[in-house]
């Protein structure tokens, strides 16, 4: 892998890739299924994410020059690689649907209800492709800006809605039961899965492998913290019932926030500051999908595959978002069923494979001197 990014950039990318979808669409689903416990669900899920992330970093650390797909190839050969790559591609294809739901419903439903859906999908995908053509490093730099804007957005929203905060809404804690809360984490886990699987692919591009673990877990904790503010505010200000009422819960948050008489609508502030994060999701998802596709087909040229992959993902995304009901059905009921097995299976399988074929690993490392 040619482009090299720093660990701090990795941190930024991880925070960004989770944030946009997690604060709004996911929280809405969680609110519907866990009610006032949504913030606890978010914490649980971040812990799950931490676990999988550590596992992923451990896996990649065994062969620091190779991403998870190349490592699989080393362990079990070409067909194993293709199988894992296919799983990953499926995951990112599905994830793209979720991301499109986030981006399009934020913009379309609240701002431009009369603009046709395809324009949103097409523009966002084109910007994504443009970003990838400029390289991972550029995306990573954009992600740094994304983190700044996430922080600004969080602070502004906090200021705008603290007046209406009611601590009573949090009680009782775990009102729908512990196990329900754990089960509902699957929705947010699917977001974290995007981060872990992406890390599995791009980690070899990151400099200073000894700091990988520190930064990726730090990113998870920071990102989890940034996201956690939202369910807490959504419970305290909106009440979980209202948060669950809407498709995009965070926009509802923004719609009800205000500072004084003048700054009375937050939607615009919200979308401006969150756009970068959302676009980084799009870019990284496209990038990971095309890298997976490259491993399925076996070609070498990433740019060659980029456009077809973008078209596939874009068409799929359009199909998903074109119908609100279908989109939410897919995201609520089907997506966790697809995402969860892949999230857990891919790292665990590769991890175990590594134990079985330990010799190949050490040999592979010798073959590729750093």
């Amino acid at each position: 892998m040619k482009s090299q990014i720093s660990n701090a950039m990795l941190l930024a990318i991880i925070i960004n890739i989770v944030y946009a979808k997690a604060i709004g669409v996911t929280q809405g689903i969680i609110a519907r299924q866990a009610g006032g416990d949504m913030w606890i669900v978010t914490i649980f899920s971040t812990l799950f994410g931490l676990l999988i992330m550590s596992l992923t970093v451990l896996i990649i650390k065994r062969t620091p020059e190779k991403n998870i797909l190349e490592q699989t190839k080393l362990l079990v050969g070409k067909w194993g690689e293709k199988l894992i790559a296919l799983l990953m591609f499926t995951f990112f294809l599905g994830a793209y649907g979720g991301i499109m739901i986030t981006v399009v419903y934020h913009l379309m439903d609240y701002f431009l209800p009369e603009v046709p859906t395809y324009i949103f999908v097409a523009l966002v995908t084109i910007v994504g492709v443009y970003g990838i053509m400029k390289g991972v490093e550029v995306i990573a730099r954009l992600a740094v800006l994304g983190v700044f804007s996430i922080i600004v957005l969080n602070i502004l929203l906090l200021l705008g809605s603290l007046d209406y905060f009611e601590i009573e809404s949090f009680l009782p804690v775990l009102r729908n039961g512990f196990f329900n809360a754990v089960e509902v984490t699957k929705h947010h886990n699917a977001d974290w899965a995007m981060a872990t699987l992406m890390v599995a692919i791009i980690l070899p591009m990151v400099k200073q492998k000894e700091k990988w673990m520190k930064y990726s877990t730090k990113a998870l904790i920071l990102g989890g913290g940034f996201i956690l503010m939202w369910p807490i505010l959504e419970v305290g200000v909106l009440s979980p019932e209202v948060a669950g009422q809407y498709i995009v819960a965070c926009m509802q948050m923004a719609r009800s926030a205000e500072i004084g008489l003048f700054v009375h609508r937050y939607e615009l502030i919200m979308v401006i500051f969150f756009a970068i994060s959302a676009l980084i999701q799009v870019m990284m998802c496209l990038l990971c999908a095309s890298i997976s596709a490259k491993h399925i087909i076996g070609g070498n040229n990433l740019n060659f595959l980029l456009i077809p992959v973008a078209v596939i993902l874009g068409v799929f995304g359009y199909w998903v978002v074109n119908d609100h009901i279908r989109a939410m059905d897919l995201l609520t009921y089907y997506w966790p069923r697809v995402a969860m097995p892949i999230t857990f299976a891919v790292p665990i399988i590769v991890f175990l494979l590594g134990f079985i074929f330990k010799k190949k690993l050490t040999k592979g490392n010798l073959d590729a001197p750093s």
Partner: protein
Amino acid sequence: MKKIMICCTFLSLLFCVGLFGKEEIDDLAMVMAVGVDKAENGEIWVTAQVVRPADARGDAGVGGTEGDPIWTATGEGKTIFEAIRNLARFSSRRIYWGHNAIIVISEEVARDGIVDVIDFFTRNNELRMRTWIVVTEKKANEVVAVKTGLEVIPGRSLDRLFRYSPIVAEAPRTDVMSLSASYIGEHVHPYLAMVRLRSRGVDPENPKEFGSIPQIELSGIAVFRDDQMVGRLNPRESRGFLWFVEDVGNAIIPLSCPDEEGPVSVELRDNRFQLTPNYKNGKVSFIATVETVTDLVELGCPTELEHSEVMEDLESDVAAYIKKDIEVMLEKVQKEFKVDAIKLGRAFQAKYPQYWNDLKDDWDEIFPEIEVKVNVKVELNNPQLLENPTRKGKD
């Protein structure tokens, strides 16, 4: 380079197709206030107060002729949506809800149910969630059409009326957000502020007929069961109600002097309200504790006493006054309306989640029987600027 060119062409093509949803600000009829009424034939009447920018901002470089700053029109239909659609028959511009400040619902409509009002105004992406929503005793269209207040645009004055309402503290600040939250929420019931028209404005050309112009007054609360209004609270009851739902703010409590005739007023400064549920032997009870620090703002009776002595006497009066407010309100809400609009259930659930599951289905039956003990502690120690009460200096 070629790729960038292709991207650019594609983008520009998209933009050419993309002139959608473009309605400039001067193509919009900006609704400032809206009223929902019921006609005699059962149809819904929606009255919108639309701002006429040229007259609302006369001299912005363009010649606005002297005219009314607002234009009010009514549309009728079987549903709210249809009525609003029909409004467009009279409007040369698109009816636009983005700047709506207030929704007024007539009591008639409120008693029939306001679920369609909630639905329409939360489903629409133009509306703000912090739009005020109130109930009026008579016709909503009268409230919407009336020219009132200090502002050029009456809708704005209604908006401000709400913003500064804590000064009087006789009505809650209810907006679409809180309405929908309490409508959707389990075991809580909505309540809305009430407005009414009172002839209190003075016509400058005819000052002898004092109070000939109707003004809008904000006071009272409409209590709902689910989406149907079940009754209203008068201003004093409303103040008792407010303790349970939001900050009372700087309310004024009028009293009379301890010994002699004459008015005394205290102003609430720093309020604390606590609701403690108890569950013993299958019986639910509550203790409501009010703690408040007040200022003496008026002492209109000649007295030889020192401030400190007067205040000591007054403290218990204030406490009794507040306690009475709350108790009268509780009586009405519990026994007459039988609706848990004061969120007792929520408080109970928060403290006893384990018992709540058994009780929640019967809560409507339990609620009227709940005993609520009211404790009021008043601290009165600030006479403002004066060191001694205003005394007669003649003897």
